[in-house]
């Protein structure tokens, strides 16, 4: 979720670009913009995003439950929270995410593939940064064995993936 040009929160807005897909595409069509920056931007966005942010709606519909019933199972009073999760307007808490896993019998990583993918990318980047920092350290001294162990663990981690 991001914030569009007017400052309103919108699930289709890419935070990096501040452009709302829904507004853009509908706007392009309504205004008759056949070519131009907006359309190019929209197309770039469409090419970029391929993974669904979550599969809660898919599994809910397969189960035949409606949002109200799913909210009841999760312990919510209204059904607004489930709707927000389905539309990726908000991320569920850890307890709720695990509750989704228990209800649908699908791993959390499969229910929220985009979040998992993003976490993976972030962690990979940080591990590379950590590895760089560790390699800068001296190979001598009191902490050298610990540093070696950390580097070994990083190497093993990459080998296993």
């Amino acid at each position, binding site marked *: 979720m991001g914030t569009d040009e007017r400052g309103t929160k919108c699930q289709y807005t890419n935070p990096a670009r501040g452009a709302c897909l829904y507004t853009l595409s509908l706007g*392009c069509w309504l205004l008759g913009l056949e070519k131009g920056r907006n359309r190019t931007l929209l197309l770039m966005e469409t090419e970029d995003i391929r993974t669904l942010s979550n599969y809660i709606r898919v599994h809910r519909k397969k189960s035949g439950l409606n949002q109200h019933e799913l909210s009841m199972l999760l312990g919510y009073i209204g059904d607004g929270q489930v709707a927000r999760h389905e539309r990726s307007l908000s991320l569920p808490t850890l307890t709720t995410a695990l509750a989704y896993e228990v209800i649908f019998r699908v791993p959390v990583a499969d229910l929220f593939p985009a979040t998992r993918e993003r976490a993976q990318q972030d962690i990979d980047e940080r591990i590379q940064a950590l590895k760089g920092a560790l390699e800068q350290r001296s190979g001598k001294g009191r902490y050298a064995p610990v540093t070696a162990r950390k580097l070994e663990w990083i190497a093993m981690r990459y080998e296993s993936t």
Partner: protein
Amino acid sequence: MNRHENMRVIALDVRPRRLGYVVFEGPTRLIDWGVKRFEVEVRHVERIVRLVAVYHPSVILLRNVRKNSSRHTPAFRSVHRRIVNWANSVELPIAYVTEAAVRQTFSASAKATKERIARLIAGCFPELAWHVPPPRKLWQSESRSMPIFDAAALALAYFAKKDPMAVRKFIVESVSFHRPLGGVAR
């Protein structure tokens, strides 16, 4: 792995005041489905825009309606033109699936009527089973949920065009697996 297996498509069954849609990720994974009824024709595109914004499909599938077909009414043409104009404006590809291709996909064992196709699709995707309408009498209108099956048939026919053996195998295996539960063996 076949590159079509993970392709996300939206198949649309467009009627002047109704829109049936299904979203598939490959031929075996049904993501979303539904029927929307409208008071005004312009709403079709609004709904499609919303679907496209959520699911980011690679292609939109439409039925190739012949000019001499009873479906080829002025109201249908108007809705169809709006959809095509919008898809062109955002350069989203549209693929047309013919009625013959749909019937060919589902005609392995018997004549493929709409009701039989609906039952076969419900056999493949049990989550759609409760949408299957009862056999229609001559004096009855078409069921409101039939556009879902028409759209699903378009999608499966599209995938069958890409990989006929995989789709046929999936249909036959699914139907034979679900046959004892009833509903498909008619």
